[in-house]
């Protein structure tokens, strides 16, 4: 068990990505160990959501490599990627449940598409996962009948139904009240402790980040400012990190010429 923890689950090397002509991520290097909870933090526009998209294999990077569980997803065949995806779970920010299906059908969907399990087994598995996220008995409802927090939890249930090794959370506490948000934090910790999942959480909520993180990566304008333990991040004397931690707006010195040309567009 201790030996396993040293394995590297996610390894990003020199990742560069563009959106149209604009460079979004520039030279990202990141490793996440097996069973580790890594928080990716940054202000809006820092590129943290983009980084997540690429980690999920939803975009083709300009250059660099992304290894998940030892496999470089930037040059996997469709079939290999398909197999790898069975080991990945993702909880999207808005839940992203299919609105045409009940909660239960949503949670069962990966099983239905990827396995030949007995109907009864799939039923029980889906209900078990809904119990894990405290949504027992809600499987017959449609997503539109649930609150935002419940949808998020149902999305977690769907993400873990295949017992993935890698779990990604996109802004798990955004738009949730503090109690529900704390419950989700608790759940994330439990998933790691019990299932030894490797978990990546993208968030800008400091409290939740400090509570659950093993390590935190701070992104700023497409660069990694720092990737270290909670303590080290808190003690960092980097100005941008401190302004992020203290929630102070960044007051940079203005370059008059540049600013003027931005305003006039000339």
């Amino acid at each position, binding site marked *: 068990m201790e030996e396993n923890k040293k394995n590297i689950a996610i390894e990003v090397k020199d990742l560069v990505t563009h959106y149209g002509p604009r460079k979004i991520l520039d030279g990202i290097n990141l490793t996440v160990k097996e069973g580790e909870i890594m928080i990716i933090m940054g202000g809006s526009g820092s590129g943290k959501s983009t980084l997540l998209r690429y980690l999920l294999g939803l975009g083709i990077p300009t250059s660099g490599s992304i290894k998940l569980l030892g496999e470089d997803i930037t040059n996997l065949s469709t079939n290999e990627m398909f197999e790898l995806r069975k080991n990945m779970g993702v909880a999207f920010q808005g839940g992203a449940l299919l609105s045409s299906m009940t909660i239960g059908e949503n949670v069962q969907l990966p099983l239905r598409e990827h396995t030949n399990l007995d109907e009864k087994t799939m039923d029980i598995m889906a209900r078990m996962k809904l119990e894990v996220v405290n949504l027992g008995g809600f499987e017959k409802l449609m997503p539109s009948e649930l609150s935002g927090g419940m949808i998020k939890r149902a*999305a977690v249930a769907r993400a873990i139904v295949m017992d993935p090794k890698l779990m990604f959370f996109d802004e798990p506490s955004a738009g949730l009240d503090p109690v529900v948000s704390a419950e989700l934090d608790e759940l994330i910790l439990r998933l790691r402790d019990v299932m030894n999942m490797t978990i990546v959480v993208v968030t800008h909520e400091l409290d939740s980040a400090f509570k659950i993180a093993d390590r935190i990566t701070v992104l700023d304008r497409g660069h990694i400012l720092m990737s270290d333990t909670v303590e080290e991040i808190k003690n960092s004397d980097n100005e941008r990190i401190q302004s992020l931690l203290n929630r102070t707006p960044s007051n940079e010195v203005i370059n008059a010429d540049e600013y003027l040309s931005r305003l006039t567009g000339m």
Partner: protein
Amino acid sequence: MPEYIAHRFLNVVEKIGISTVKFIEAVGYYFALLIESVAWIIAGSFYKQPVRIPSIFSQMMTIGIAACPIVFILSFSIGVMLAIQMIYNLKTFGAESQVVVGVALSVTREFAPLITGILIAGRTGSALAAKLGTMQVNQEIDALRVMGINPIRYLVSPALLAMLIMVPALTFFSDIAGLLGGALYTGIEIGLSFSAYIDRTMAALMVGDVMQGLFKSLVFALIITLVGASSGFSVTGGAEGVGKATTRSVVLSISFIVIADMIFTYFLNR
């Protein structure tokens, strides 16, 4: 200010260039989408990702069965309208009785597929665009992809198959409704009995006439699905984007349908 004018001119040229590139890009995307959907239908099972039969049937229900009443009403009206126009026109030659042939050929070769195509474009094509667009906005498409469920296989292939079956079926239904409308009006106006009308229609119609209409409707089904799906997938920018994509899909598919109709009619009647 000749320089200024030259600049304007270049701007226009540039815009034309950009829209041309965009158009070619779009057509390329339609073909890629078509090839991928068909590939999933044929080879999905090999990749352990078959296209599910139940989802095809549920699509067929919404596309086809639910559209029957409106297809009937419109086609019937078209049949009546054609009969009115033709009797009026043929009167000048004293050839009112030829109305049967006119209605039969116009309905089966042209109006039934066209009206069905336009109706389905407005009804199903827009619904497909709206559904995929909403799914795109809500990250449901991303969710499918990360679950290892190919969105084209899961969403487009069943719709394509269902459309390829149901649009011709509805067109045939529209043929019958249109002829019925023609028969009704002709019966009232020039006193031709229903059975005589049917007899003459059968005599006038060749299998080829009906087939020509059905063949066109297959092409329309392709157009509606591909335009609807690609409009949906390309949605950006929230609810407003979904609205725009829906409108776009209807306008584009109806335009493509009419243009394709003209082209096919030309070649099929050489």
